[in-house]
C-alpha cells in the first residue's frame, strides 16, 4: 500500500514540477530587431529572453501569416524569417507570442530589391484607327527581382517606332504601374512599342493602325450593251475608296449600291472592297429604263448619283388573230440583231373595249420567239376590242372583233 502511495506521490511531484517548468518568460529584450531592410535579404530577429520557455514569433504580411520557432542559445533567442516573407516587399508585421500573450510586436519595412527590374507590359486596344482621335494605352508594371512592384515614381522610357520614325518619352510609376496613352498616326501601318528602365527592356508590343472611315467616292459601271434584255449583267464599281488621311480603306469594307429605277422601285446590290474598290453586279432590266445608281459605305460615306439608261431590246413584231381558234399569235419577236428573243420573256396584253375602258389583262411568255395565247371569251359582248401588247417595252396595238358566233 505504501509503495502505491509513494508512486502516487512521485507522480504528483513530477506533475507539479512539470507545471512549474510551464514556460515562464519574464521579459524579452530586443537584441537585433531590424525595422527596414531590402527584399530578399535574410531577416533574423533576436531577443534576449529572461526566464524559461521559448516564445513563438508570428510573422504576417499580405501573402499570409506563419509562426517561426525560436532558436535558443546563450539566453538569446533568434527567429530567422522564412524566405517567403523576406522576399515580399512591404510591411511585415511580427508578434512575439507566449502562452497566448503578446510579449512584443513590431513591423519591418521591406524595401524593393535593388536593380534587376523585370518589365511586364500590357497594351490595348491592339487595333486602332488612323487619325488623331483614336489611341491605345500602354501599361507597364515593373517589378524587382522578387516580383515586388517598384517604388512609386520610378522612371520608365517608352520607345515607339512607326514606319521610319522613332520616338521616345518618359513616364513615371504611380499606384504600382506606369501608363501612357499613345495616340494613333495618320498612316495605316503597325506601331511598335517598347518600355525600358535601368537597362531592362520589355518585349516588343505592336499595335495595328487601321485606315479610318471612308470618304466620298464615285461609282462607275460596265456592261456589254445598253439593251434591256433582262439577260446580261451590269457591273458597278467604285473608285478607290480612301480615308481622310489618304489610306485605302480596309479590305472587306462593304459598299451598298442602291438603284432607283424610273418606275420608282429601289433595287439593292452590294460588294466588299479589295484594294479600295468594291464591285457588285446586277441583271439588266427587261424593258427600257433609266436608272439612278448611288454607292454607300454605311455610316461613313457615299457617292454622287450616276445615271444608267437602257434601250429596249425588242424590235417591231407581228400579231395575228386566229378567228377560228380565238388565239392570238405573236411573233416572231426578234431583237436588235434580229435574234430570237429568249424563252420566258414576259408578254403583257391589255384589252380595251371600244369605249377605251380596260376590260382585261392577259399575260404570257415567249417560246421559240413566239407567244400563242387563247383569248378568254367569258363575259365578253360582241364588238371591237383593242389589244395593247407589250414585249420588253415595245408596244403593238391590234384591233380584233368578237362576233356573236364566236361568243356562243
Amino acid at each position, binding site marked *: 500500500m505504501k509503495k502505491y502511495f509513494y508512486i502516487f506521490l512521485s507522480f504528483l511531484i513530477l506533475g507539479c514540477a512539470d507545471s512549474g517548468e510551464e514556460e515562464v518568460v519574464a521579459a524579452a529584450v530586443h537584441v537585433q530587431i531590424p525595422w527596414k531592410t531590402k527584399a530578399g535579404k535574410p531577416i533574423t530577429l533576436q531577443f534576449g529572453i529572461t526566464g524559461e520557455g521559448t516564445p513563438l514569433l*508570428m510573422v504576417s504580411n499580405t501573402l499570409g*501569416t506563419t509562426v517561426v520557432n525560436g532558436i535558443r542559445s546563450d539566453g538569446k533567442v533568434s527567429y530567422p524569417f522564412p524566405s*517567403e516573407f523576406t522576399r515580399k516587399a512591404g*510591411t511585415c508585421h511580427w508578434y512575439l507570442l507566449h502562452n*497566448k500573450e503578446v510579449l512584443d510586436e513590431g513591423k519591418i519595412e521591406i524595401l524593393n530589391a535593388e536593380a534587376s527590374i523585370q518589365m511586364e507590359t500590357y497594351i490595348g486596344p491592339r487595333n486602332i484607327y488612323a487619325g488623331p482621335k483614336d489611341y491605345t494605352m500602354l501599361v507597364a508594371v515593373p517589378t524587382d527581382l522578387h516580383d515586388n512592384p517598384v517604388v512609386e515614381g520610378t522612371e520608365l522610357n517608352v520607345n515607339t517606332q512607326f514606319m521610319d520614325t522613332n520616338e521616345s518619352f518618359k513616364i513615371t510609376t504611380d499606384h504600382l504601374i506606369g501608363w501612357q496613352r499613345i495616340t494613333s498616326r495618320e498612316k495605316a501601318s503597325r506601331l511598335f512599342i517598347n518600355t525600358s528602365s535601368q537597362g531592362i527592356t520589355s518585349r516588343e508590343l505592336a499595335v495595328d493602325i487601321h485606315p479610318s472611315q471612308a470618304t466620298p467616292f464615285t461609282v462607275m459601271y460596265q456592261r456589254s450593251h445598253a439593251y434591256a434584255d433582262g439577260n446580261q449583267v451590269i457591273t458597278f464599281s467604285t473608285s478607290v475608296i480612301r480615308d481622310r488621311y489618304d489610306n485605302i480603306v480596309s479590305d472587306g469594307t462593304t459598299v451598298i449600291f442602291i438603284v432607283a429605277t424610273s418606275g420608282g422601285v429601289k433595287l439593292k446590290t452590294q460588294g466588299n472592297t479589295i484594294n479600295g474598290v468594291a464591285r457588285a453586279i446586277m441583271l439588266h432590266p427587261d424593258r427600257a429604263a433609266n436608272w439612278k445608281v448611288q454607292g454607300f459605305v454605311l455610316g461613313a460615306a457615299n457617292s454622287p448619283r450616276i445615271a444608267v439608261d437602257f434601250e429596249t431590246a425588242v424590235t417591231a413584231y407581228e400579231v395575228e388573230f386566229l378567228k377560228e381558234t380565238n388565239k392570238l399569235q405573236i411573233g416572231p419577236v426578234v431583237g436588235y440583231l434580229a435574234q430570237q428573243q429568249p424563252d420566258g420573256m414576259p408578254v403583257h396584253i391589255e384589252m380595251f373595249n371600244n369605249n377605251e375602258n380596260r376590260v382585261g389583262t392577259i399575260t404570257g411568255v415567249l417560246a421559240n420567239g413566239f407567244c400563242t395565247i387563247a383569248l378568254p371569251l367569258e363575259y365578253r359582248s360582241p364588238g371591237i376590242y383593242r389589244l395593247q401588247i407589250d414585249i420588253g417595252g415595245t408596244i403593238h396595238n391590234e384591233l380584233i372583233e368578237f362576233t356573236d358566233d364566236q361568243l356562243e
Partner: protein
Amino acid sequence: MTSWNKNIYRSLLILSFVGLNAIILWGLAEAWVFWNSGADKASILHTGIEVDDSYQPEIEWDILENQGRPMEKQTLLDIERDYIRSWYVRSVATASNNPHGLGDYYTDSLRRKLSQVLELNKANGITLKETTLAHNPILEFYSDDGTLVVFSDNNVESYREVWQRGEMLHTIREVKSYQVMMLLEDGFWRIRHLVEGNHPSISSADIPDIGTSQIKSIKGLNYYPAQTPWDTFGSGFSEEIIKEDFAMIRGMGLNSIRIFIPYEAFGKGRVDAEKQSKLMKVLDLAAVMDLKVLVTLFDFYGNYDLTDWTATHRHADTLVKLLKEHPALLGWDIKNEPDLDFDSRGKNKVLAWLEEMICQISKWDREHPVTIGWSSPQAAELLADKVHFISFHYYDKPNQFEKDYLSLKKKAGNTPILLSEFGISSYSGFWNAFLGSEKEQTAYYTEMMSLLKQEETPFMFWTLYDFKEVPIEVTGRYPWRRQPQKYYGCVTVEGLEKPSFKVLDQSPLK
C-alpha cells in the same frame, strides 16, 4: 433424415438463386451507374468556385476620378465579385493549407507565392481562420481596353485566428490598407499584385459615447402577439392586433417593449423586404403609442463561425440602417441569451462574434446603445465593458435577486443595467406537480416589483400574454418545459386579465 437433407438442399438452392439474382442486379446497377457518370458537362464552362453566400463583407466603392477609362457599372460588379471571392478562397485555403481555387482569383505568379506560404504552414501545422469584415476600395486606374484595374482598398477590417496543431495561438483584429492590381484573364478578374499600403488607418474599434440616460426609466415587457408567439412577423402579422396590444401596454403605464428578429426567417444576410416593412410598421405603431422598442437581433441564430460572420454583419447592417433613424428605437440587443450556446459552440467563439458585432453595430449606428440579453446576472459580467448598457434575465427565486443584482452592479460600475426578462409561469398541472398558480405568479411579481422599485432597476417582464402554442425550437420537446412556457403572461389567451396584471400595471390611474 432424408427430408432434413432435402430441406437443406432446397433452401440452399433457393438462397443461391436469390443470391445469384442479387449479384446480377447489383452488377447491372453498377454498370449502369458507371456508364452514366463522368465529368459534369457544366465543367467545360469553367465557372469557378461558387462562393458560399455566408461571406458578404461590407464593401463600399469610391470610383470618382479614376484615371483611364470611365468605369462601367457591370464591370465594377464583376471586379467586386471576383475581388471578394479572392479573399474568400484565400481564407478557405489558409484554413486548410490547400491551394484549391486560388488559381481562379490570383494570377500565376501571385498564386505561386501564396502556395509557398501554404506549404510552409502545412509543414509547421499552422492553420489560420480569417475573415475580412469591411472593404473600402478606391478605384485608381482602369485601362482603356478594360482588362487591367488598380485600386486601393483602405481600412480593410479583418479578424484572424492563428492555430498550431489544434491550439489557438493568437487572435488579431486588424485594419490594413492595400493596393491591388487585377487583370482580366479568361473571364476572371485575378489579383496580380497585392501590396500593403501606407494609407492612414482609422481604427473602427472605438466605441462611441452613446447616451444611455433613458435606460434608467425603462418600464416594459417582452412582446409577442398572443396568437403568433415567436413569429411576430410571419403570415399571421396583423397591424390591428399589434395596435390594440400596444394600446394596452401603454394603458398599463409601460414605456418600452422588447421584440425579437429571427435571423433565418428574416432571410439571413439578405434581409427580406417584406419583413423589413413589417418591422418598420411595428416601430411606427410603437411610436404612435409613445413606446420605445428594444430590438433583439439574431433570434434562433447559433452558428457564430468565422465563415458566417460577414453574413450576420450584413443582416445586422441592413436592419440597423433601416431603423437607426426611427424615433421609437430604444437600442439594440444583439442576441437573446447567447451564453446558452457556450457549451455547444465554445465560449470564445461566441464572445468573439458578440464583441465584433458590438463594434460593427456601433459603427453603423452611433446614437443607439447596444446590449446583450444574457440569461443570468452571472453571465452579464461578460463583455460588460464593451456594451453600452448591461441587460440580463432573471428566473430564479426573488429572494436571491438582490444579492445577484448588487454583485453585478458592483462590477458594472457606471454602466446602466436593465433586467430585460423576468417572470414566472402560472402553469399548474401534471408537469410541475400542480405547484404553480396564478396566485403564485401574483405573489412573485409583487415581490419582484417591490425589489425593483427599491433598487430602481429598469425592467422588462416576460410577458404580456399566455400562449396557446409554443414552438419546439424555443423550449425543446419535453412537455415539462413546454407546458409552463405557455402561462407566463399576465393576460390569458382569451384576453382576460390575470391577477398578476394588477401588480404589473404601472399606470397612475390604478
